């Protein structure tokens, strides 16, 4: 009898895995422990893919874990009178449980390609809105200035304070001066490593105004944790006004010292 109780106890412990697992995911959003607000145009496709995979793996998770529980419960030696079933395997079952996941995964693989291509492959035909350069431990920004081209004398230099217009495509040219960094905008569902020696284009379209975090998501040294920037999305008019203001501040004075460094990283 004690043995039987032990079997029940252990089976229930394993049943707790799917129960509490699903519960954790169900409760988390209520406490705002969940995907941060998304203000981008492409973000919805990423989030829905996340939910889709969550549902798919959730089902697989629950089914397999419950089966595991059930077999532990049912086939406990303390409960069994006879012998275990002598069976070596089943060809049909092997085929079935290879084909079904294969089909599922293949579907998933094909289904997601479009979202990936949108974010990383279909670069809009435009010149960079801003150049973002990672440097230990700050984000150096360079706007093309009035002439609209980067690398000219009227470029505008800033640090950590990124402003971008909403409702239009923006193209960020991402570079690094020293080590790897990663340009992570949680609220825009954008992440891209900045690699020394490479110019990597990053594009997106924000749909909502607001101020959000820029996180460095690739280990870049001791100060990695504090390599924080802010991005402000605002309507075109406000953005232009801001640019104008910054431009006036920088004015005819010498470009700040970091300007030379950024240029050197060219």
């Amino acid at each position, binding site marked *: 009898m004690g043995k039987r109780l032990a079997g029940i106890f*252990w089976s229930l412990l*394993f049943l707790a*895995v799917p129960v*509490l*697992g699903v519960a*954790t*995911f169900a409760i*988390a959003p209520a406490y705002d*422990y*969940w*995907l*941060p607000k998304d203000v981008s145009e492409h973000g919805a*496709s*990423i989030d829905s893919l996340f939910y889709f*995979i969550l549902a*798919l793996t959730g089902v*697989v998770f629950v089914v397999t874990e419950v*089966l*595991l529980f059930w*077999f*532990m419960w049912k*086939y406990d*030696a303390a409960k069994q009178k006879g*012998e*275990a*079933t*002598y069976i*070596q*395997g089943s060809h049909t079952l*092997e085929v079935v449980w290879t084909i079904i*996941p*294969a089909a599922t*995964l293949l579907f998933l*693989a094909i289904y*997601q*390609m479009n979202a*990936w291509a949108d*974010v*990383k492959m279909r670069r809009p035909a435009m010149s960079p809105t801003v150049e973002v350069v990672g440097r*230990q431990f700050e984000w150096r920004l360079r706007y093309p200035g009035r002439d609209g081209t980067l690398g000219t004398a009227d470029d505008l230099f800033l640090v950590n304070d990124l402003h971008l217009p909403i409702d239009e495509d923006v193209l960020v040219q991402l570079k690094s001066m*020293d*080590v790897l960094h*990663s340009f992570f905008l949680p609220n825009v569902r*954008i*992440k891209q490593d900045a*690699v020394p*020696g*490479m110019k990597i284009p990053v594009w997106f379209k924000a749909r909502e105004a607001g101020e*959000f*975090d820029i996180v460095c*998501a*690739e*280990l*870049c*040294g*001791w100060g*990695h*944790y*504090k390599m924080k920037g802010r991005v402000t999305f605002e309507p075109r008019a406000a953005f232009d006004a801001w640019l104008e203001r910054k431009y006036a501040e920088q004015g005819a004075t010498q470009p700040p010292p970091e300007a030379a460094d950024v240029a050197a*990283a060219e």
Partner: protein
Amino acid sequence: MTPPPVTATPAVEHGTVVGHAHGHAPKAGLSHFLSTYVFSKDHKVIGLQFLFSTLLWFLIGGLLALAVRWQVAWPWSDVPVIGKLFAQEGGQMSPEFYTMLFTMHASVMIFLVIIPILAGAFGNFLIPLMIGADDMAFPTLNMLSYWFMWPAFFFFGASFFVEGGAASGGWTSYPTLSTNPASSPASGMGQTMWLLGLTMVGVSSMLGSVNYMTTIILMRAPGMTMFRLPMTIWAMFITAILQAFALPVLTAAGFMQLSDRMLGTGFFSPEGNVVNNAIAGAGGGQPLLWQHLFWFYSHPAVYIMILPAMGMVSDILTVFARKPLFGYRPMVYSIAGIAGLGFIVWGHHMFMSGMNPALGITFMVSTMMIALPSAVKTFNWLGTLWGGKIQFTTSMLFALSFVSMFIIGGLSGIFMAATPVDIFIHDTYFIVAHFHYVLFAGTAMGVWAAIYFWFPKMFGRTMNEFWGKVHFFLTFIFLNGTFFTMHILGAVGFPRRLADAYHYETFHHLQPMNAFMTYCAIGMVATQVIFAANFIYSMFWGPLAGRNPWNANTLEWTAPSPPGHGNFDYQPIVHRGPYEYSVPGVEKDHLMQTDPPNAAAAAAAAAH
């Protein structure tokens, strides 16, 4: 091949400890002690040497993890007890120190614990015993493979005490952070020692793997065809192949990084790389090249870190379900499939790295496909339990939890394999959750299953079941408390490798959850005291086990416990596969691989 002369199968004696295959006249003296316990060429002693060393490092790695957890939960607060040892001001850790902590935590766990405990400890101990050999094909080489670990132990261990501290470039050691000392004042010498240590682990694994393959190919007992090998051996065999083909690539890359650091070449730094206002070498190289080489090894390495556990768990499940393994051949093929596919998916670690996004798609597809053999394995484990007669021993509980936890870890892999989703969760705690589920909740639980299971063969005594179950229960609870919640952190985008993320508005509110996880982690490490005590006590005072305490079928259980030098006191001859449990019509519920066929037939006849 002439039939072997002696085929006497020993009666299974109970209660022997020193069932040595042959009497050793006790020799005294230091040289005897050294050659028996220190510079031994006996695969069992070498296996135990690996086991003890790796358990010790496991403890160190676990303590490093606790320090990591402390900082994540309560950044910049004074570290209790050990804070005084390293902190500059008060007892609070610096961000440099934090980067060093998780780098060395991961490096220790991967290179000094999981890889050597699987292949080194269990591979060494089990391979000759389970195939019916008296030792490895090349015992001296085998001994060297253990002794090459010592320089690695030294380099990793000593690096904590050199100027600037141990390596702090992450266990992935990405350039140019790792190649350019100016970029990371926190690790100068330490990073170099890390690379040297890595090379030594590589030499050790290489020596081991070629030896294992040779042994398994040439030294199987008569009748032990490849498809009568237990899953443990299949897994070790294929792991050895993975090691042999993947590791040299990392070794080559390691030399290139060493050369970048010490000679000033620029394999991994681009031209004109300016770090801390200093031009760093001539350059002309590519930072991404390192990532390709590193992951070409380290992705197969994650399977090196789980296949042996899968093999051992398969065997343990059959023993305690008293059932044949469901789908033996599919199980073998799926290991081979994982190993084969494992070589073409490395790019899934580099989706955000700046690698050509079109290449990302091919890696995404191959990564999706690698879930298939894993699916086959999972379903076959479930199939093995179905209709069984399950005995809830400690070993079985750990094996069952391996299956349960591997499913979680594997399924989270699917999120990351989906490239668009990886955009958001890459380098967040979602990844940390994923790999702790496969590595700790998976492999380490599998290792515990194996320790409880083969302990009697190693020391002739069984471990205490009650305390074993307490150990299992607490570990199981605490591990899920620590790691399951990491998925949620990941869903918020909480980045990994950050000494303090709470100054970000997005992550500010996550501190209570992190504190909860840290409490669980503390509980988890504390629980291991029970394990350590049980282990050490049982080694000397546990109940005697006899040859075959679990009524298992494989060859090692026909040898004395512990086996003497030369392993077998008779010529093992194999008549069947390893999983003949509950054969209908046979009175005994298990037919050992060595049981002669006529005995089986006789037993069957008697039963009718």
